[in-house]
């Protein structure tokens, strides 16, 4: 599998870290060896990407001898929940511009909408 762009490597590394058993925390060396078994990749690339993820707050780290040990600050589920709150709950105060396929609506509108949609669906299949 080729890695396109820096963002994708970040995603691969986060994916690995989340799917690992997080005790004990991971070193760059361990992760590099895992990745290098599947693709050609430089040790320094993995190191700088993990450093970057640390500065952006995705990974926490602790010095262990000469190397750092990394672990995720939040689980994948916690991140998903945060992002979905941002995207679906009518936006926090600084809103994010998103194009929803279907806007989230209230209960009454939803019921009314469904009834009309059911009627339309019948109309199209007839």
């Amino acid at each position, binding site marked *: 599998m080729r890695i396109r*762009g820096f*963002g*994708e490597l*970040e*995603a691969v590394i*986060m994916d690995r870290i989340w799917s690992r058993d997080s005790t004990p925390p991971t070193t760059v060396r361990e992760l590099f060896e895992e990745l290098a078994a599947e693709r050609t990749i430089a040790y320094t690339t993995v190191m700088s990407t993990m450093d970057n993820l640390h500065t952006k707050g*995705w990974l926490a780290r602790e010095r262990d001898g000469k190397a750092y040990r990394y672990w995720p600050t939040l689980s*994948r*589920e916690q*991140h*998903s*929940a945060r*992002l*979905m709150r*941002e*995207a*679906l*709950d*009518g*936006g926090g105060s*600084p*809103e*994010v*511009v*998103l*194009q*929803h*396929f*279907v*806007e*989230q*609506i*209230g*209960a*009454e*509108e*939803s*019921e*009314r*909408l*469904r*009834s*009309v*949609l*059911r*009627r*339309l*669906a019948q*109309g*199209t299949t007839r």
Partner: protein
Amino acid sequence: MISVVVGLLLYSMAMLVAAPPLLRALTSSGNAPRLGVVTWLSAIGTVVGSWLATAAMVIVEVISHWTHPRTVAASCLARLQRTISGDAGIAPQITLVVIAAAFTVAVAIIGMRLAAAVLGMRARAHEHARAVRLVGRHTGEANVVMVDAAKAAAYCVAGRPPAIVVTSAARAALDDRQLAAVLAHERAHLAGHHAVIVSALRALAAVFPRLSLITEGAQQVSRLLEMCADDVAARRHSSRALLSGLIALCTAAPAEALAAADLAVLARAERLATPPAGSAKVKTRAALTSVVAIMAAGPLIAVADCIRRSHVWGPGMRADPHTTVGLIAAPSPSKALGHSASGKVVSMMMMMMDDGHWGWGSWLLTTGTTIVFWALVITAVVLLARYLLSLSQRPTGTPRAAGASNAEQVLAERYARGEIDDEEYQRRLGLLRQNMASTTTT
């Protein structure tokens, strides 16, 4: 200059009052969503543009009189100053500095707030896109990520690269055909850079929250952009696949009281179920195109009109011997009227110098007649648009559908207020639907 400024300000005021209801009526049908977006954007654009032009003219006027503060008497601003303080009581340059600085600062502050709002929204969107890519599972398709969530939702977010997010619940609710149509809809948003338009309008709405032209424009444009994306997706796949995807996602969405949304989804669904007739499309297009043309010509006409009137009324007024600086062959009224376009611009420039020749009385008279003139023009446009609209709406069955859903809404409201119980609600709803089904089939 004052006539140009008055013309532009009158134009923008007329637009602020008349445009929102007119454009709402013309674009609500969704017959020509893309042209509808163009119309709203040009309405907002010409208004903002005329404010900018006004501010620029005031600043330029002040600067151009800078080296000859004595000749400032030719400008309306200095006349104001003279009226208040007696002839050249305070140093004219101080007044000029204050006026120019006030305008510059106002433009700069508004510009900075707009830029900050747009850049902030962009940064948050990019951050969201990046985070979603880290958290979500990548599917085979470019830029599409799946995120585990109990709520069914699909959306796109601008970024480098952008992301289209489909929640696991939405994936479960959609079959492959529907998913492809939904993804095509989201891709159309990304390809059309709709997020840029929406962010710019939301930023403007945040800076001018009291102008309904802008706040309502922001809402209507996002609604129309959804319809544009629907059209692209329906062309690429089929309107039936898209409609059933829409229905599947609405039915899968949990019925929670969230942000209040208008029933834009309903309008979209009805559009997909019964696409607008060709003749209705043509009529809406014609109406929208003429509105755009009027709006494009509006500022120019307003300015030219004010200039013409100031010529008509100007010569009769007392001429101040101190203000003869701008006397560069003031064109006669007939000349100004019969001029070609370039000639008008020249006479406009001359008028900027010529302003000193008419007093406050004529100014009031001019303004009054101009307001009456424009009120008539706007009324004519509104009546014309209403007429065109009534033509385009007659063939469709919307009144009946609206009546039916109104009845259901009344019922739902009574149910929500606790006036009727579950059984009663279901029974009445069933009867209403039966009744409607029989009327639609006959």
